[in-house]
């Protein structure tokens, strides 16, 4: 065992003087980062208490997270209604988990449910109506808002993205060039300007007197912005489909829409799931930007707490907390999409 280790380290760590130097440098780097971080985050940290004054150990003050937990997660959403947000997320995750266990042909129904029915259910649950108390959108916030916007954004952008991708490959010149211009324009501008436009400019474009909720405006902005990216991913899937599939569909007398809905899209969508997952990760990382148009997103709550006289200077703990959640979620999603990609690439060979 030990001899094996020595042999291995001789081969891969100390094969020549240059390699040994690099190894020593790496060890130095690890030693100067990891022990201080562990000291700060665990050994010297305070875990229990009610106030900032309880944190005397000199390390991280996790009391801040436990006291502010509900605000960080749900913003100013009324505490007695938080189960509604949780239920929506459980339905969402449950549906996706369920889809792993059903047969291939039912998966399209699940996709249909997620795109057209789930948003309505979740919206009614979270906002209220039909007997549930209405919670105004300005009370929504925290990490839940980030996830709500990212999930709604990707779901709403999907149908539009598919249409744009089909349009870009259309033989009709007006439709083709319109789709190209639309996609390239949205891909060429930053999300932040889209958010500014949704928050400040869009109300000016509506007839005076009509009022569209700010969150809805932002959600629509995100969905349209994202549809351009989804369209490019879907286009990749459409292009990867062999020509024979199109010819076969046409030769049995299918029209354009029949061909796309029953032959082309079911196969193309399956191959673009990893790409869509990557787009979703990118969107999830971009959604915290809504803080810059004045929404109480998790970073907004952290920045607010930092200015609170009782919790001055609690920025690091808040950022580390947010970083761990974002890091874990996007790591899980990206390893899932990588696994899927590998599976598809071997299936096709």
């Amino acid at each position, binding site marked *: 065992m030990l001899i094996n280790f020595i042999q291995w380290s001789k081969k891969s760590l100390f094969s020549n003087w240059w390699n040994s130097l690099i190894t020593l440098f*790496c060890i130095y780097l690890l030693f100067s980062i990891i022990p201080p971080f562990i000291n700060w985050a665990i050994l010297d940290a305070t875990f229990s208490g009610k106030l900032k004054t309880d944190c005397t150990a000199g390390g991280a003050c996790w009391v801040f997270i436990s006291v502010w937990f509900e605000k960080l997660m749900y913003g100013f959403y009324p505490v007695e209604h938080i189960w509604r947000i949780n239920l929506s997320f459980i339905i969402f995750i449950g549906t996706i988990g369920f889809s792993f266990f059903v047969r291939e042909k039912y998966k399209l129904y699940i996709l249909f449910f997620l795109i057209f029915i789930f948003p309505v259910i979740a919206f009614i649950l979270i906002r209220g109506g039909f007997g549930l108390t209405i919670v105004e959108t300005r009370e929504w916030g925290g990490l839940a808002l980030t996830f709500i916007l990212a999930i709604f954004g990707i779901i709403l952008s999907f149908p539009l993205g598919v249409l744009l991708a089909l349009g870009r490959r259309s033989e009709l010149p007006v439709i083709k060039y319109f789709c190209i211009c639309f996609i390239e324009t949205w891909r060429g501008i930053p999300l932040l*300007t889209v958010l500014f436009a949704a928050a400040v400019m869009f109300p000016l474009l509506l007839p*005076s007197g009509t009022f569209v909720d700010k969150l809805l405006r932002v959600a629509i902005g995100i969905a349209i912005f994202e549809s351009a990216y989804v369209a490019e991913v879907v286009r990749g899937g459409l292009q990867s489909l062999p020509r024979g599939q199109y010819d076969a569909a046409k030769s049995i007398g299918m029209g354009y829409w029949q061909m796309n809905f029953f032959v082309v899209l079911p196969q193309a969508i399956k191959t673009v799931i990893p790409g869509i997952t990557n787009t979703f990760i990118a969107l999830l990382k971009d959604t915290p930007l809504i803080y810059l148009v004045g929404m109480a997103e998790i970073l907004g709550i952290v*920045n607010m707490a930092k200015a609170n006289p009782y919790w001055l200077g609690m920025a690091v703990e808040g*950022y580390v907390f*947010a970083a761990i959640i974002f890091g874990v979620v996007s790591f899980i999603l990206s390893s899932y999409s990588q696994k899927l990609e590998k599976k598809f690439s071997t299936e096709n060979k």
Partner: protein
Amino acid sequence: MLRIEEIKNSVKKNLRLGNLIPQLLLLFTFVFIIYYFTSNAQTNMASRNISSGFDFLKTNSGFDVQFSLIDYDGSYSFGRAYLVGLLNTLLVSSFGIVFATILGFLVGVARLSNNFLLSKLSQLYVEILRNLPLILQIFFWYFVVLRNLPSTENSFIFLDFLIVNVQGAYFPKFIFTNFNAIFYGLVCAILAIFLARYYSKKLIYERGKSLPVFKISILCLILFTTIFALIGNTDLQLKRAELIQNFGIFNYVGGVKLVPEFLALLFALSLYTSTFIAENVRAGILSVGKGQKEASKSLGFNNSQSLKLIIIPQALRVIIPPTTNQYLNLLKNSSLAAGIGYPDLASVFAGTALSQTGKAIEIIFIVMLTYLSISLIISAFLNWYNHKIAFVEK
């Protein structure tokens, strides 16, 4: 003849009812939406007594900007404020692109290293920084790292050259007298390099000999600039930032000051983008087959020749297209400057100027158009370059 036939066919095809109706419908809907929005905007602007149009660009802005490459204060126009924002965006993006590329190449190569520790460490770097939202990283650098730097009195001073404290980083200003001479020297050096490259190409084709062009180029650069500088009597002075006490408050004055907002944005952008570039570089190098390297060895190329002439040109074909996208992403991501108040295009113009004038439509339109045109210019240039180096299959 064939072309005319083709056009006739396509016109005929498009005039068929099934093809004509959707196209006209799309066109009509698009025009209607534009018309609907503009007419609403006009009535809304009129009712709020906001004049429309771009005349405001010439009026005095009345706000100050803390970091600017050109002379600017409140007495300048909004047009000038736009220019300040644009230059700041371009400044941070171009520095970011350079640093991200260098870092990305280093990390990408390190991930393929034989050294177990180094490759795992670079993988960790990529996985962590890639999966965290950029705005979080910007906040972390700005509010946590740079805010905790020492105060002005206790600044870090490196070799009397770089001064770092909580107010930013200070470099000495380089002041050249008779700079023209160096410039002419540079021009001559570049001419000489082109000549040397031409000559070495000719030598390879005619006699099969190669010249060390790279070494010659560096020699030319150094030789010509120093000779011209000596002839032209060029002098270089360093103007360092100096500690001055004013009403009991210490401050560094003079030199080149980089504000912490700029540094935080630059660090976050370059580190974040470097992870994506590192992945591209890794994929690019892996895509070059092992046989290529062996073949070049068996042809008698030495290590650097095979790297320069065989491996890198093929890897670049795979690396460049996705890296272009990352450059464009970096440019677009630089708009997150608004989060920490670095005066870039989005924060100066779509933030401050918009709230001063209330001209939301014009300003958002200008900002979007600017980002769009920079993106299109960069991608057009890189498409051209891509096309140039693309693999020609026979």
